[in-house]
């Protein structure tokens, strides 16, 4: 009897050990399922080919940067600055993304704010409208360097025609194409789709679900992935999505129903992996690198990631198209660097901004690390031609401008994601879905705001 129970106990325990074993192996064994490592070229220099662009001798400065961004890029920028400004060293601290605002508020209360603050650019309007950032217009506004900063970053760093920050780094969304799958389907990988119909047709030609190959990819459970890669299809087609402030209309544009119908068609025709319905962003960056997706909207960073994950992958990039040929768009993401209220090092902080916008840093730090430059007028200098190709998106990239980006768009409970899920996975009438979403977005943007003035 005792032996019986001991055996039973052992079997039970062994079951749990097995479960634990599976868990451990899931994170280490299959090479194609391992989480991506940080996008990076083989070597990160320890010495940077840069010179001081001005003077800064006011002593050490502090900088906060949100976690979860492009830490490698920010580390490199700070290292390059510290190399040439020994009397003005920057001490960089990473703050958990969701903790940035509480930390800053505490800092303002105690007088302990950083001199520089890297901010997810989508929070720009919220911070500038609340008066939490220092106006840098008079110090850098007329500088030719600032005249060419990427437009998406400029728009969210501007409030009432005053500038409050410059780009720290930029990401853009593009259409990635798996050249091998294109050739297998008899398509020319050098001829990308120029409109959504062509995108559909190419995806259909590539689609081979029996062999695990799908034509296109749309994340079903990830608001951020969709604003990054699906919103540009709407923008390119002439639509707008989010209301900027109370009184603005949401989802404007006759093309919106057609783009949404297109997305539904892509799902209904089985051109998108059904597994994408569960995609909450965690494995999004691994999808293209797995080599089973013909065409996919993703970010410039995915060039490195895909090649790291799958060294044999042969890819090309193109712009995300709209309904009509020639219509293109992209999402400009990344961070802006700002000076929070309470810092008394405004001039030195702006010196840092000028430094990172200078030609030498754009070339010898940003592009050397395979990142996009943050000025639109610099000549591309990239070792990898695929990375160079991603640069084309900068000129058509835009960033949503709204005071409630997270509630409207980025939250897993946002009306944006709910709209897409209803479009992708239900048969509900598109017009009804749009009307519901419009009402929800307009209610959210007006919550806590003064009622808009009526005209007429």
């Amino acid at each position, binding site marked *: *009897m*005792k032996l019986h*129970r*001991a055996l*039973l*106990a*052992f079997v*039970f*325990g062994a079951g*749990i*050990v097995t*479960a*634990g074993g*599976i*868990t451990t*192996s*899931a*994170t280490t064994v*299959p090479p*194609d*399922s391992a*989480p991506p490592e940080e996008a990076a070229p083989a070597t990160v220099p320890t010495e940077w080919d840069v010179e001081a662009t001005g003077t800064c001798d006011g002593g050490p400065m502090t900088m906060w940067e949100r976690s979860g961004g492009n830490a490698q890029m920010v580390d490199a920028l700070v290292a390059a600055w510290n190399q040439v400004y020994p009397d003005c060293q920057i001490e960089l601290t990473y703050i958990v993304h*969701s*903790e940035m*605002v*509480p930390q*800053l*508020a505490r800092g303002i209360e105690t007088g302990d704010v950083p001199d520089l603050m890297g901010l997810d650019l989508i929070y720009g309007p*919220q*911070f500038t409208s*609340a*008066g*939490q950032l220092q106006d840098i217009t008079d110090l850098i506004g007329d500088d030719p360097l600032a005249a060419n900063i990427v437009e998406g970053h400029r728009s969210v760093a501007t409030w009432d025609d005053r500038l409050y920050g410059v780009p720290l780094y930029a990401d853009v969304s593009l259409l990635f194409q798996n050249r091998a799958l294109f050739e297998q389907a008899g398509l020319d990988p050098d001829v990308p789709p120029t409109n959504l119909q062509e995108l559909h047709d190419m995806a259909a030609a590539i689609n081979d679900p029996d062999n695990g190959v799908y034509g296109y990819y749309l994340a*079903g*459970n990830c608001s951020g992935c969709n604003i990054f890669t699906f919103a540009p299809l709407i923008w390119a087609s002439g639509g707008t999505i989010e209301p900027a402030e109370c009184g603005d209309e949401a989802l404007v544009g006759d093309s919106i129903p057609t783009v949404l119908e297109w997305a539904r068609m892509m799902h209904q025709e089985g051109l998108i*992996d*059904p*597994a994408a*319905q*569960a995609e*909450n962003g*965690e*494995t999004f960056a*691994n*999808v293209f690198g*797995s080599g089973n997706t013909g065409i996919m909207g993703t970010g410039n960073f995915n060039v490195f990631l895909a090649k790291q994950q799958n060294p044999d992958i042969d890819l090309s990039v193109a712009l995300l198209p709209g309904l009509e040929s020639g219509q293109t768009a992209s999402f400009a993401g990344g961070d802006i660097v700002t000076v929070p209220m309470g810092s008394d090092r405004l001039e030195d902080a702006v010196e840092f901004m000028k430094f990172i916008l200078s030609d030498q840093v754009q070339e010898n730090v940003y592009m050397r690390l395979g990142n996009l430059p943050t000025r639109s007028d610099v000549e591309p200098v990239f070792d990898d031609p695929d990375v160079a190709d991603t640069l084309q998106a900068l000129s058509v990239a835009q960033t949503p401008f709204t005071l*409630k980006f*997270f*509630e409207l768009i*980025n*939250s*897993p*409970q946002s009306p944006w*994601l*709910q709209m897409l*899920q*209803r479009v992708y996975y239900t048969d509900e009438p598109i017009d009804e879905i749009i009307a519901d979403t419009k009402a929800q977005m307009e209610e959210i943007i007006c919550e*806590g705001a003064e009622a808009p003035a009526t005209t007429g």
Partner: protein
Amino acid sequence: MRARTKRKLAGAAYVAPAFLFVLAFTVYPFMRTFRISLTDESLLVPAEYVGLDNFRDALDDDQFWGAFRFTLKYTVLLTPILMIGGYLLALLLATNTGVRRFTRAVVFIPVVIGLGVSSLLWYWLFSPRFGLINAALQDLGIIDEPILWLGVNPNTSLWAIIVSITWKVIGFGMILFVAAIQAVPKEVNEAALVDGASAWQRAVRVTLPLTMRTVLLVTLISVIGSLLAFDQFFLMTAGQPLNQTATSVFYIYLNTFPFLKLGYGAALSLMLAAFILIFTVTQMVLSRRSAR
């Protein structure tokens, strides 16, 4: 009289550190939360007093109550699994032999892993594209297509998370139960054995009643933990599909931090705390009655 006063003072001095600790880390934050709940605090702009508006809004907030109902459902489903499973494991492993000690240690190992880490591990395990669970089920011929465990069907998502949490925390209850079972006097069990009671009868009629206090303690811990569930849902489903797997704390988190509605988040937190308090007091009263 003087001696009494001295004793009282000495008693107060002993209590003082704990009292100050509670004052600093429980009473003050609670009062501060209450104060914030009466404002429209956002951290970005100066807060204004709004009275009980946040509480009124919360009463009409369908998303909050939907999340609350889902949290209750999760709690009601998970608690019996953890209790019964933990107790059965403890019955099997209570005796101190080499194999049993080893098995106890193995079952307990996931308890020391962070919940965030274990949630990510299970997210990958359940992944339809990369996960080993679907791959194993397909290789065994049990399923033809990968199952979309997380974020697509609320029930499938819920059960997938329950599996992951059971793996993660069942060892905690088991260890407490093992300690309680080992504390049951041998003589009582031997007397029952002499009276002809089977192993099952001894477990149900002797061991269980004598370990009831631990059972109630573990129930309390398990229920409170489930009502405060956050990490696993945040990481594994993000409340999807269509917010049907959003828990109360997840909704409070969204309002408080990403939405920067601290006043509203504080009001929701207090409402949830009040519910947990009512539940805890009720259970403690009931457990005292049953112990009499």
